[in-house]
């Protein structure tokens, strides 16, 4: 799933030294100068590296990358989506000699990463998200992302089998397309098991709000909802609170089964090491890096957590069967006829959007069966 665009070895291996010298910074500043073949990779995280969630998923992959010969990894955590991140990138380039940067948070792309990419044409920038566009953005930048909605679809099937009240819940940060796709996939997965299942959504308003996340979990439990999943940066509090309330949970971002030994069903996890290895290997070999790299379960970009004890045999069978279908490619969760939860038709009969469909990236509706609104 890599749409490569050629980048010459010369462009790629242009050293930080040249960049720094061009800026008139003098040589005293230069770090251990990179030997040809050696690669310094910079990772930037928006939150703490050990959040049991989004940032941890990236940091775990970075830790694996660190062990590969010839690769040096520099990391910075809790970098806000302001000019600070531009300065962090610049500092990694100028002071550490990084030639491949992974700013992992969505908000890093525009304008910060683009600004730096224009300033340092010899450095490669790859951003986690789906923003790169050949017509608009330079060739030393690019996007990579995983189709994790399929993971949430499988979560939904597990939830559909596990729920007794036919009411399941989803705690989300903000109503943005990525999140809406996850909510809808989860709800549709459950409806595959039983079309009468409803999915209650609660938005907490921000990516890391532990007290609100716990409150949201409790208010879902009070409503009789017995399976919950989420899309926030660190699902730890939600998974723990749900376990305490005797609910089932489906994980997200990383494997949270240790936090809920009884109630953890399965989870949709990132598997970024696949992507990072690919990029690093290409960079070291002087081959072009992809600019628009996507992948799902089949490509190993996304994986599912091992089944927990609450998953029935019937559930396992169905999940494995659907997963096998997904692995074949072309599988569509969002397909017509599909109505949103206000009764409007959003996908016409016969139309189908597989995970690669660009239409999914501007999703602005909640499907029928989801309780909640995106105001």
């Amino acid at each position, binding site marked *: 799933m890599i749409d490569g665009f050629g980048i010459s070895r010369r462009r790629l291996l242009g050293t930080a030294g040249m960049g720094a010298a061009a800026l008139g*910074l003098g040589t005293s*500043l230069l770090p251990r100068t990179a030997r040809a073949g050696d690669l310094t990779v910079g990772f930037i995280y928006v939150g703490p590296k050990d959040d049991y969630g989004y940032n941890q998923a990236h940091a775990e992959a970075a830790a694996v990358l660190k062990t590969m010969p010839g690769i040096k990894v*520099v990391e*910075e*955590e809790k970098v806000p989506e*302001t000019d600070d991140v531009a300065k962090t990138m610049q500092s990694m380039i100028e002071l550490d000699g990084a030639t491949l940067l992974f700013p992992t948070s969505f908000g890093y792309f525009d304008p910060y990463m683009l600004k730096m990419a224009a300033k340092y044409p010899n450095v490669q920038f790859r951003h986690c998200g789906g923003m790169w566009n050949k017509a608009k953005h330079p060739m030393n930048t690019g996007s990579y992302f995983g189709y994790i909605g399929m993971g949430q679809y499988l979560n939904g099937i597990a939830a559909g089998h596990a729920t007794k009240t036919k009411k399941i819940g989803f705690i989300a940060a903000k109503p943005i397309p990525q999140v809406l796709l996850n909510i809808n996939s989860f709800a549709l997965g459950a409806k595959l098991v039983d079309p009468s299942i409803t999915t209650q959504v609660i938005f907490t308003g921000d990516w890391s709000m532990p007290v609100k996340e716990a409150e949201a979990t409790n208010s879902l439990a009070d409503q009789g909802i017995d399976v919950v999943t989420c899309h926030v940066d660190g699902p730890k509090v939600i998974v723990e609170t749900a376990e305490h309330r005797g609910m089932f949970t489906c994980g997200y971002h990383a494997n949270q089964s240790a936090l809920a030994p009884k109630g953890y069903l399965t989870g949709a996890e990132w598997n970024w090491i696949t992507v990072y290895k690919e990029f690093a290997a290409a960079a070291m070999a002087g081959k072009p890096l992809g600019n628009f790299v996507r992948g799902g379960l089949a490509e190993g970009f996304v994986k599912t957590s091992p089944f927990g004890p609450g998953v029935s045999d019937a559930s396992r069978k169905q999940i494995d069967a659907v997963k096998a279908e997904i692995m074949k490619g072309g599988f569509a969760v969002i397909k017509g006829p599909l109505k949103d939860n206000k009764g409007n038709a959003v996908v016409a009969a016969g139309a189908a959007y597989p995970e690669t469909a660009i239409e999914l990236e501007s999703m602005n509706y909640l499907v029928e069966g989801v309780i909640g609104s995106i105001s």
Partner: protein
Amino acid sequence: MSAASDTQRSAAAPVQTGAADRLYPLRRALEALGSPVLALLLSAICFSIFLLALGKSPADFFSLMWKGAFGSAFSLGNTLQRAAPLLLTALCVALPAQLGLTVIGGEGALVLGGLAASVAALPLDGAWPPLVQLAMAIAGAAAGAVWIGITGLLRSRRGINETVASLVLSYVGIALFNHLVEGPLRDPASLNKPSTYAIGDANMLGPLPGTGLHPGLLVGVIACVLAWILISRTSLGFAMRVTGGNLRAAQLQGLPVARLVMLACLLGGACAGLAGMIEVAAVHGRANASLVAGYGYAGILIAFLARHNPLAIIPMAVLMGGIGAAGGLLQRRMGLPDATVQVLQGFIFVAILASETLYGRFAWFQPRGAR
């Protein structure tokens, strides 16, 4: 009346010196310079002990610190970039402080200022960019002024404590900002990061010519100088300082205390709002959650470190910017957690604020011949 107003009195009240003591201003400056430097040294020593206890080398730490903050043109640029928004948010604290008010709600004023600025640019799409920028600046400053002005109004009309009111209003302001950015004012095309409509590339403030530096730096420095002139060279500033020094005396003299309170709050709020406008116009290009970056809170500390002297805000903001700029390098080279910088800042703030007690302790610095 306690420490807050005592500080005000000594810092702001005009000092009568005898003609014989021409060197007094110099000694006073030395005193003002001496105790923070002493405090910095002390906090550096304490922090070194902290590092040694953790088995890290203080020498490595401070040399990296220097390298990351001031050691090269790039580092210095990074430092100044970070200092830029803090100049204006510190003024939001320092101006009301002349009256003895402690306003800590600059964050709310900043984000609402940024929001107002981004909204003001929309109807003017296609107009002459400097005009758009002027409208944005006015809108941003006005929104900030209104927000801190509410605090001033509550203070002067209802007697509600400004520290509590501004803090609470700041939370309300941020909630309002989030609601508007993700609701009514959202650009539907801002898919995964809800934002207002972009102000357009033409309307962006470019970096300062020849330096690549944040334009807020120039605006901030100008604002600091203007604030200094207002406070120390005008009769209005004199009235503010008298009120801050002794409220009763000011009332007895017939100074319009309530109006002065409003004025200081409006001006301070305008500064914070302007900081928001500059962040939008120079950095983000639109208003979104990135604006809520804690500049308002950092400004409080800088204002106190500068003892509410607008000119002293400049070096203090640079110091803080420098520590922030070096933080990343420390993470990457020494494997120290990101919170290291925060610990160091905590040490420095505690030490510098405590050093306040040294003022006036040493006779050598005091005026002579004036009895």
